[in-house]
Structures are given as structure tokens and as C-alpha cells.
């Protein structure tokens, strides 16, 4: 059997398969402290993050959902598992680190994981807006890359 293009296909490790079969924190929070959407406007694929933050700025609960490909589900599952129960500051720095880390990944994975980070950033923004008494259902941030673009596009 011929190998497929490894650049395009995610390497499925045992850990990745576990997240595919049992995505962590998939769903929604009805009365969330903040809700954010990260959207790829070229494909209309999106991810949603729901944050429940207590008074000490600890993430009591986090959920995600998405209309996107499997890579986004994997990224959402891994990221939410990593920051659940942690402080908001820790979560923000984890998001920044993840953004840096995925810069070297194939474009499709950059877009899919980036969608989760954007949704998280948007949810944090929504929390801040609520403090400033700005009324909105959620905040939305657009991705600056799309998985529709070919890998070699300049």
C-alpha cells in the first residue's frame, strides 16, 4: 500500500486516539461566565468555548463544541483538559504557548488548533466585556489562516 502524504495526515498516537474516542469536555455550559467563538470565515467552520470562572479566577468548568474537522475535536479535548481546574492566568499562558507551538505544524492543524485558541481568547474577552457591562451572547474572533489554503501558499 502506498503511503499518503504525511504532511496532511495527523499521526494518530495512543493519546490522540484516546481523545478521538473519548473527547473531554465536549458540550456546553448553560450559565457560562464567558462564551467565545473562533471561526474560519472561509470555510464557516467554528469552535465554541464555554468558561465557568469563580471569584478567585479559577476555571471551575470548561466545555467546547465545534462544527469542524477531527483535528479541532482533538485540539479542543486536549486543551480543555489541560486548563480545566487551573487559574485563568495559567490558561492564558497555555493558550499563548500552544499558539507558538502550532506555528510549525501543517497549515490544516494550525487552523484547526488555532480555532480552539481563538474561541478561548474570545471567551476570555466575553468575560471581560461582561465586567464592563457590555451585553452580548458571546464574543467572536476570526482566524487569520484557513485550512482551505494550500500548504505552499505564500
Amino acid at each position, binding site marked *: *500500500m*502506498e*503511503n*499518503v502524504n*504525511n504532511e496532511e*495526515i*495527523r*499521526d*494518530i498516537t*495512543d493519546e490522540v*486516539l484516546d481523545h*478521538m*474516542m*473519548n*473527547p473531554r469536555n*465536549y*458540550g456546553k455550559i448553560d450559565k457560562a461566565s464567558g462564551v467565545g467563538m473562533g471561526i474560519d470565515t472561509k470555510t*464557516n467552520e467554528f469552535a*465554541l468555548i464555554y468558561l465557568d470562572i469563580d471569584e478567585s479566577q479559577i476555571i471551575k468548568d470548561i466545555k467546547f*463544541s*465545534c*462544527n469542524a*474537522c*477531527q483535528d479541532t*475535536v482533538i485540539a479542543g479535548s486536549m486543551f480543555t483538559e489541560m486548563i480545566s481546574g487551573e487559574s485563568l492566568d495559567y490558561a492564558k499562558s497555555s493558550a499563548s504557548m500552544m499558539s507558538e507551538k502550532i506555528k510549525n505544524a501543517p497549515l490544516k492543524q494550525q487552523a484547526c488548533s488555532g480555532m480552539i485558541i481563538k474561541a478561548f481568547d474570545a471567551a476570555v474577552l466575553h468575560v471581560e466585556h461582561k465586567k464592563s457591562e457590555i451585553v452580548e451572547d458571546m464574543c467572536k474572533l476570526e482566524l487569520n489562516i484557513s485550512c482551505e489554503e494550500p500548504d505552499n501558499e505564500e
Partner: protein
Amino acid sequence: MKLSEIYQKKHELWLKILFASFAISNETIKSELYDMAGIEFRHLKWLSNLLLEKNIEYDYEKKCIDIQKESNLEFFKFLRDEILEIKREYSMESALFMRMNSDENYFLERLEEFIKFDSNKKIYAFDRNRIYKNKDLSKSSTDALNIFLFEEGYKEYELIMIYAYMQNYTKNLTLYNVYQDLIDESMYHLKCFGNMQAHMGILTIPRTIIPSLYKQADIKKFLLDGIDEERAAKEECIKLSVAVKDKELSKFFDFINYQENYHIELMQKALMHLT
């Protein structure tokens, strides 16, 4: 229990029986469970009609469903208990509930028979072996096939539920029939992909569908986007067919690919009949 909650429970029950049919390897029981799931899906359709008549909102929310059972016995008992639980909620004042009750009484009898005669078998559908028996797949090809099965399995489930929702709300007979054809097509694809997932030990219930996807404000846009998605799915089938240098699997993905062409035709027909 509210009617909309019964709907949610029935949605979960349909998925549990359907995915049990993928997980069980005994061909006779597999086929019988698949038929039971088909009947449960019709219950769901009739319940959605009733909800619409009563002007009650319903959705596709569902709980996290753990179907990763180790033996047939465990799975049959699980299904039996789930049926017994929901049956308690039926009001016997309507023909629909009497019908659902009667069907499920029979399902319970069949499950008891399965428990007696085929309970010791181990289930391999969740063991993560990722081996396609008698196929020489490389690691990257296996990864590609697995990603495809997860993505397209979810997509088929999503399409079934979206078209079912749109079908319930349309008064146009042509559109109703087109949606039914698309549901039937996706049911077949879901069955194929589900059985392949089970074969490779990676079977899972699809994730919950986001309400904005089925509560479509703009059906025209949905269909236009859907045509693009069908084209993308065709591309995925072609890529996979080329990558899998196995005659049998390649033929299967070519066959699925050609079916997508007709889905596009059906969706274009629906677009023409939108008012």
C-alpha cells in the same frame, strides 16, 4: 417527563441500538439490531411530528453515551435496561405510545433471547486494534483511514439529523421526498463507516450536533454549503481510494464517491423547489 425529554431519550436509545448493531459481530444479531434501530428511528420521526403538532420545541441534545462494553452480555443488558427505563415514561393514551411500547416489548424479548444464546462473546469494536484484517495498510494509511471514518461517520449522522429536522418542518412534498432520500443515503454510509470503525476497534457515538446547524434559518445557504461539502467529501474519498492500494477498499471508496454525485443532484433539486 416532558415530551421533548422523551424525544431526547429516544434519540439516545436509537444511537445505542444502532451502534450496538455495528459493535456486535454475530451477523444475525447485528442485522436484527440494525432493524430495531430503524424502527426506533421511525419512532423518533413520529415523535418529532407530534412535537411539531403540539408546537413544542425539540433539539438534539444528548448525554455523553458510554457504549464501550466488553462483552455481548454487557451490551444486551445495557440495551435492555435502557429500554425498560424509557418505557416507564410512555403514556398509553395515544396510538403512538402504544405502538412504541409494543415494539419495545418485542425488542426486550429478543434481547433476552440474545442474552441466553450469544452472551459470552467478547466485543472487539472498542479495543483500538486499528487493524483492518487481511489488508496490508501502512501506519500513515491507517491514520488516514481512521481520520476519514471519524470525520465522515460524524458527518453522516449530522446530515441524517439535519435532514430529519428540515423534513419535519417542510410542507413541500418534493422537498420532503428529497430529504428522505438523503436521509436513507446517509443511513447507509453511516452503517458502512460504523461497521468499519468497529472492525478496527475504534467505534464511538458521534458528538452532539450544534443547534444552529439544524435549526437552519437559511435553508438555501445550507444546501449551497452542503453541495460544497459533498464535493469536499468526494475529494476525500478519491484521496483515500488512491492511498489505499487495496482493490476491495479502493472500489468501496470509489462507489461511495460516485454516490456523492447524486447527493449533489438531489440537493440541487431541493434548491429548485425552495420557495
